[in-house]
């Protein structure tokens, strides 16, 4: 039996380039794209994060 744990949400926008630079993350030596969030989704789901 196979159970799905997670699948990507459908995204309206891809390649918008608004994501934060990976190297501004926590590590500076093993910057990992997959540990980042999509900046646009973050803003859309949390208006307080909107950068005015």
């Amino acid at each position, binding site marked *: *039996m*196979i*159970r*799905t*744990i*997670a*699948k*990507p*949400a459908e*995204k309206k*926008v*891809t*390649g*918008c*380039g*608004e*994501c*934060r*630079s*990976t*190297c*501004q*993350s*926590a*590590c*500076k*030596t*093993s*910057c*990992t*794209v*997959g*540990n*980042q*969030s*999509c*900046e646009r*989704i*973050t803003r859309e*789901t949390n208006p307080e994060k909107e*950068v*005015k």
Partner: protein
Amino acid sequence: MYHVFKYKNYNYIYDVGSGSLHSCDQKTADYLAHGEGQNVDISYLSQTDIDAIAEDVRALEEQGLLNAPETTARPVKSGYVKALCIHICHDCNLRCRYCFADEGAYHAPREFMSEQTAKKAIDFLIANSGDRRVLEADFFGGEPLMCLDVIKNVVAYAREQGAKHGKKFLFTTTTNALLLDDDAIDFFNREMENVVLSIDGRREVHDAIRKTVNGRGSFDIVLQKIKKFVQSRGDKSYYVRGTFTAKNLDFSNDVIFLAEQGFDSISMEPVVTDIDDLAIKPEHLPAIKREYEALCEKYLEKWKKGEGFNFFHFNIDLEGGPCLSKRVSACGAGNEYFSVVPNGDIYPCHQFAGDPAFRMGNVYEGALNSRIREKFASSCLFTRSDCDKCFAKFICSGGCSANNYHFCGDIQKPYPITCEMMKKRIECGMHVLAVKKGMA
């Protein structure tokens, strides 16, 4: 392409093309692992078992969640600059043995960036940012707090220029916290989107490496200061960031130690060094993999008790993470992200700073070396052939260009030790995701 892996008694299937994660029973795991090319005996499976598994697989394939075609998304290639790492000084008040930056000096005379040069870097960023509205600048060193007054003036200047040009700046500072006083805390809390504070964990681990210029351990001073800062930080971002070496392969104890100091945002990175007694070597990998599992267990134990914390490398967001264009683009160093050193010279990132072969220009000249920039701009997951068959490729994007270059001599050539650690962290992160969703 998919990847079947076991974590303790749990079996997982990660579908590379769709980015989906599934759990499954042992028979299904064995059957699919065999199909993936793993050396797994499936002779015990009956035809009825195989038919049932095939039916499950077919259903997922029809939904595009297994054996999904891999992306044809192309890398983000805006041609704009969106972030700078500003080396506000090449000097440091610590003498950490493992420092990739030569204890802050970057293999050159110790040097401070002038306010004029730092402002010129801001001008360079704005002038080359195209229509991008949000820009990032990271104050880096050496130790940036040795130049707090310059940073304050540069931030004020960037805010002023940003307002004129319709740009919003997000600032980060990476600091060893030794000079983190009330004034710096107040400034950081007002102006810094993120602050990265270096502390390696337990006193004996930290003090063995992170010594002051007088040779004394810095643990007692920085722990107290970081605690004070974090208590004042509210809901703004920060990370306490440690480094583990061959001397503390039991680094899960350091992460938990940091969590127990009240820090809820933690990263712990493998050292980047060729110093023999500190460097991570192939023979350390089995212990490191076991340690990531140990950390995963301790992390989940705390989470279940309501004492959860954020560990950077376990943040695998398969549902809302970066888009595929970003995932194949890697970090953007040398193309949309650069480092500026105290004399204004520009490099692809902080780890290339000072290497003449990678000098791309100077903020006073304005122009960037197009040959080097194109080399980095055209570098992406699809140009890293070693990554073709790796399940982790859409999460790690082919690794760190600097790491690849320094260990393998080519920004396109992933460093196998880093890859092995990365893959283990990803598997642990996926298990964390399953547990948090109540599915493990």
